[in-house]
């Protein structure tokens, strides 16, 4: 096992990796940009190295600085987390060239799966079903028009180099095609430094179901079942769960075997995820993510397998000796992504300072969070702040538990996706497991239900606050006096208040 591992990431995933290191008896080295100095991942790690300013290009994406941080601290291996350099084959190569271990798959596997058009070709070769689409990247909008005509609208444009919804556009008709092609190309170029896009037929109401795989260097490759991630907005996952309410053990075994075949086809080592679109009992390979996924905890909770711990152990040369439990998956797990986005304002980014933070606890609740009180949420990085994960014996109980935990969560100072998640937990289609990746479009009134009650409470609180404020400051000249003396207003000192402010 390694003595020291450098964690080349930030936020909740960096903290997750630091925790895995500590549980394996490995010293963790955190890196941080200037605004992240007081982040939990930095304060939790045994060692921490500043690597530059807020701009990711000059810090978390700067390969030279990361390698220098590893050299100066004597780290033997680098864990890339997800995002940033996690799926950059050049980074994997440079880490190995520096005599360090990259905790992830071989650069060749990242390269093969990272180029989405090459990945499709490899999957077709390995007899893994794929969504009908273009054979390779599309060069011009004329070519896009011909290809779309062949596949039939609606079609989906996707970045050849990317994932996560960037550079992706749904096109309903030929009239929209040229503009969408330009936008997708521009976005792909900015996000991945590679503007190439390709095209697929757009399935109307599929579910997103993915299989977790683990492979060691000795040639063992296993799968750990599926996660359903159908609740998405603009291809960004919001809620994930395991197992899926529609996958039976026979389908699970079939998809699992195909995922293992997909991983083997590219010589995969480490933890990876094979994503499928699932519609009416049919499934198609979407892509393989050659890294740990944001939603890995739901698999950890229903299998009892420490996926991040295994990533590190496999990189250190350990062989997979997992016994797949016949009773597995055990119970049901749900994850809600708590992002700095305002669901009432079209999920626009919400920035500001976390003035106060109370994290849910209690039975079956896990909080993987990268923020703390006083933390400034800016625009430099991904808006994901934390993940709230629950585990319970059944799906119904997991939903109830998640609602309870979401109500315990209190974040002051920024808007987050918390009320969206609460609304989903109360929505009948979700409760019945009736969902597809169109769930949000199909439920436009999700956030309006019950909103009036909250407005009345806010209104009442504000009126009392003003009354209290005026009573405290006294009636200023020109303003009407407050009626009643302090002992007779509706605001009373509670036992709680007296405990903090004895008088």
């Amino acid at each position, binding site marked *: 096992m390694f003595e020291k591992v450098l964690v080349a990431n930030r936020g909740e995933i960096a903290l997750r990796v630091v925790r895995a290191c500590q549980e394996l008896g490995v010293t963790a080295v955190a890196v941080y940009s200037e605004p992240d100095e007081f982040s939990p991942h930095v304060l939790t790690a045994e060692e921490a190295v500043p690597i530059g300013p807020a701009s990711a290009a000059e810090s978390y994406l700067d390969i030279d600085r990361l390698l220098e941080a590893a050299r100066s601290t004597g780290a033997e291996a680098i864990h890339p987390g997800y995002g940033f350099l996690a799926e950059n084959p050049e980074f994997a190569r440079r880490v190995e060239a520096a005599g360090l271990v990259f905790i992830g798959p071989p650069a060749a596997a990242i390269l093969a799966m990272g180029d989405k058009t090459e990945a499709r070709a490899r999957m077709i070769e390995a007899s893994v079903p794929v969504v009908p689409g273009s054979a390779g990247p599309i060069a011009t909008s004329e070519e896009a028009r011909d290809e779309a005509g062949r596949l039939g609208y609606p079609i989906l444009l996707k970045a050849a180099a990317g994932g996560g919804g*960037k550079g992706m556009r749904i096109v309903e008709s030929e009239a929209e095609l040229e503009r969408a092609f330009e936008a997708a190309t521009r976005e792909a170029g900015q996000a991945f430094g590679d503007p190439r896009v390709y095209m697929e037929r757009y399935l109307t109401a599929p579910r997103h179901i993915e299989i977790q795989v683990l492979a060691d260097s000795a040639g063992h490759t296993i799968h750990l079942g599926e996660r359903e991630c159908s609740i998405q907005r603009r291809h960004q996952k919001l809620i994930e769960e395991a197992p899926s309410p529609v996958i039976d053990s026979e389908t699970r075994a079939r998809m699992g075997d195909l995922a293992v075949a997909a991983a083997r086809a590219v010589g995969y080592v480490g933890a990876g995820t094979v994503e499928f679109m699932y519609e009416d009992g049919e499934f198609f390979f979407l892509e393989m993510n050659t890294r740990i996924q944001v939603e890995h905890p739901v698999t950890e909770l229903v299998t009892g397998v420490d996926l991040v711990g295994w990533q590190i152990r496999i990189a250190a040369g350990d062989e997979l000796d997992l016994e797949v439990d016949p009773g597995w998956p055990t119970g049901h797990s749900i994850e809600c992504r708590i992002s700095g986005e305002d669901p009432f304002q079209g999920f626009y980014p919400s920035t500001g300072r976390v003035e106060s933070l109370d994290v849910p606890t209690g039975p079956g609740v896990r909080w993987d969070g990268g923020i703390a009180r006083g933390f400034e949420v800016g625009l430099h990085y991904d808006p994901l702040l934390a993940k709230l994960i629950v585990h319970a014996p059944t799906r119904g109980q997991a939903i109830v538990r998640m609602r309870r935990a979401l109500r315990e969560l*209190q974040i002051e100072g920024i808007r987050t996706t918390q009320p969206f998640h609460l609304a989903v937990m109360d929505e009948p289609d979700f409760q019945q497991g009736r969902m597809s990746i169109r769930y949000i479009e199909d439920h436009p009134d999700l956030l309006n239900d019950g909103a009036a009650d909250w407005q009345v409470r806010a209104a*009442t609180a504000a009126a009392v606050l003003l009354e209290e404020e005026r009573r405290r400051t006294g009636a200023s000249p020109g303003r009407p006096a407050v009626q009643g003396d302090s002992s007779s207003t*509706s605001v009373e000192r509670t036992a*709680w208040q007296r405990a903090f402010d004895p008088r």
Partner: protein
Amino acid sequence: MRYFVTVEDREYSVEIDGAAMSVDGVPVAAELASLPGTDRRHLRMDDRSVSLFGRLQPDGWLVELEGRGFVVRVEDERARHIRDLASAAAPLETHREVRAPMPGLIVKVEVEVGQEVEQGDGLIVMEAMKMENELRADSSATVREVRVEPGQTVNRDDLLVVLE
């Protein structure tokens, strides 16, 4: 004292008279306590116990509860009366300002001064957190001013385009 409380586009009339309170004429039992030195409040209203945060900002009280944030404007009767007199004298606004809904980068300016736009036409493409968002005209109008150019970074509520 009667307060006019505006939450989003809904107005409530809240009457506080000693220990008695009513919202839009309906009596409510509400008590609010504050944890000294913090924005934390505890509202007990009609047997529901709600933990919330309340902070005075320039544009009103920011009230945050169960992940929902409301900027709540509160006026007493006297302030309301003064404002009514002032607004009666002010001219009607004929132009509309398109402001940045979020901080971000201007990717594309799709209109120029003098151009006629229809409802739904794209005005500005903004990028924030690597995602592009298009701001569109909410009704037909003429572009009177364009205040930004591609490559410029803007803050929330910065003026982008003026329509007439």
